[in-house]
């Protein structure tokens, strides 16, 4: 599996640390425990296309949102959290998507 880092280009999977689902990007505000539980623990966990967070540990140390397929291991693309990741998840939020 190779991931194309927006800054470094195509790199071996070993350079990256997998953190988890992009659910981590939408941190709930306030003290709604159900929302915090969902944010930290509950997952849609789909078999197919996902967006998840990877850290380019042994490269540029950027946080990335990687779009890939959990069944085929195909990687479709990666975007910087600093650029696109947050705004994309914010778009989901405004549509009433996953918390």
């Amino acid at each position, binding site marked *: 599996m190779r991931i194309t880092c927006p800054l470094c280009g195509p790199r071996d999977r070993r350079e990256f640390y997998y953190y*988890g689902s992009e659910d981590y990007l939408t941190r709930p505000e306030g003290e709604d425990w159900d929302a915090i*539980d969902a944010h930290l623990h509950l997952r849609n966990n789909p078999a197919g296309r996902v967006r998840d967070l990877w850290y380019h540990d042994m490269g540029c140390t950027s946080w990335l949102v990687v779009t890939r397929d959990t069944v085929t291991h195909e990687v479709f693309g990666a975007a910087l959290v600093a650029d696109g990741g947050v705004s994309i998840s914010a778009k989901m939020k405004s549509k009433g998507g996953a918390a």
Partner: protein
Amino acid sequence: MRYSGLKVITEGLFGNKGWKPMWRDPAPKAEYDAIIIGGGGHGLATAYYLAKNHGLTNIAVLEKGHIGSGNIGRNTTIVRANYFLPGNSEFYSQSLKLWEGMEADLNYNVMHSQRGLINLFHSDGQRDAFVRRGNAMINQGDDAILLDREGVREHLPYLDFEQTRFPIYGGLLHPRGGTARHDAVAWGYARGADMRGVDLIQNCEVTGIDIEGGRVVGVQTTRGAIKARKVGMVVAGRSGQVAAMAGMRLPIESHVLQAFVTEGLKPVIDHVVSFGMGHFYISQSDKGGLVFGGDIDFYASYASRGNLPMVEHVMEAGMTLMPMIGRAKVLRSWGGIMDMTPDGSPIIDKTPVEGLFVDAGWNYGGFKAVPASGWCMAHLMATGEGHENARKFRLDRFKTGHLLDEEGTGSQHNLH
């Protein structure tokens, strides 16, 4: 199909033509008292104990493939009770006792071999942790013996004790730990459940869960609708997708765990050996193959195959620990899909939907848990009350903060 020594001899004399299928192949009925989704080890054990312990026999096990075709048919077969935390300790202790009585109970040879399990340690701090774990195991009524370096050498003379990275300081021996024949466990429970009247329905994939007024009333399947007032989801590896049919999200992320088998060799490794610092464990099957594995690949996956970095890592760890295996040829490898929970411990609990129960989140330790999981899940489904030994395997424990983090690695799905 019943077995006896006499039957084996007479069949041997007449060409083994009289053996019959071990269980029926019934069509689904329109309604059952209870349905178990998933015909793997845990689902079959649940059905068996529902029938045996609770007298519930109008039940069906629905399996999308054939019996035993999931993780119960592909794992590294280790059976042990060396847990530390209250909640895990008594559960796995009960499971090991059930393993020890399983062959007599099922009248089925599951080739349970208590060859001893040795967890190695490589520092003073790790030794202290193992002393504490060993004491917890003894307090639970199980067995543990602390071995120093020379003690380990008596059992495992072939290890590289002086390796520069992780020199071996000693090990914790769990004499009652060992292995079993994975397929036979599924077959034994399937036969036992079938003999008690349970319908094992194969090639029957559940496509929907019917809920009316907050209560489960049945399931939709590829072989038609089936009614039931009690439904158990026992589908580790696919738990998220089945739960989604009931509108639930689970605290589970699916990950791939790889394992490897070499060509058959003469007996060379007599124990189960685990090398935690290198993420490596190994045993030798009765056919002679070395069966070994390591850690998960660390990213969410349903691929049933892993990537090469973990293959390389596992091979390196094996060569670091026991250079003698370097000439053995790997015959095959595979990846299994694991329900990873944020604390590494499983879930056996009710759900917010009345009559719907969940047995999931076995991470990569589900095999040894098969009998106790079935026992406790059957208790829960029959009585509506959680079994004492599974009282901490709560679905809501992440929200309430009552985690069971055996390894102390933190609340993230891929850390366990």
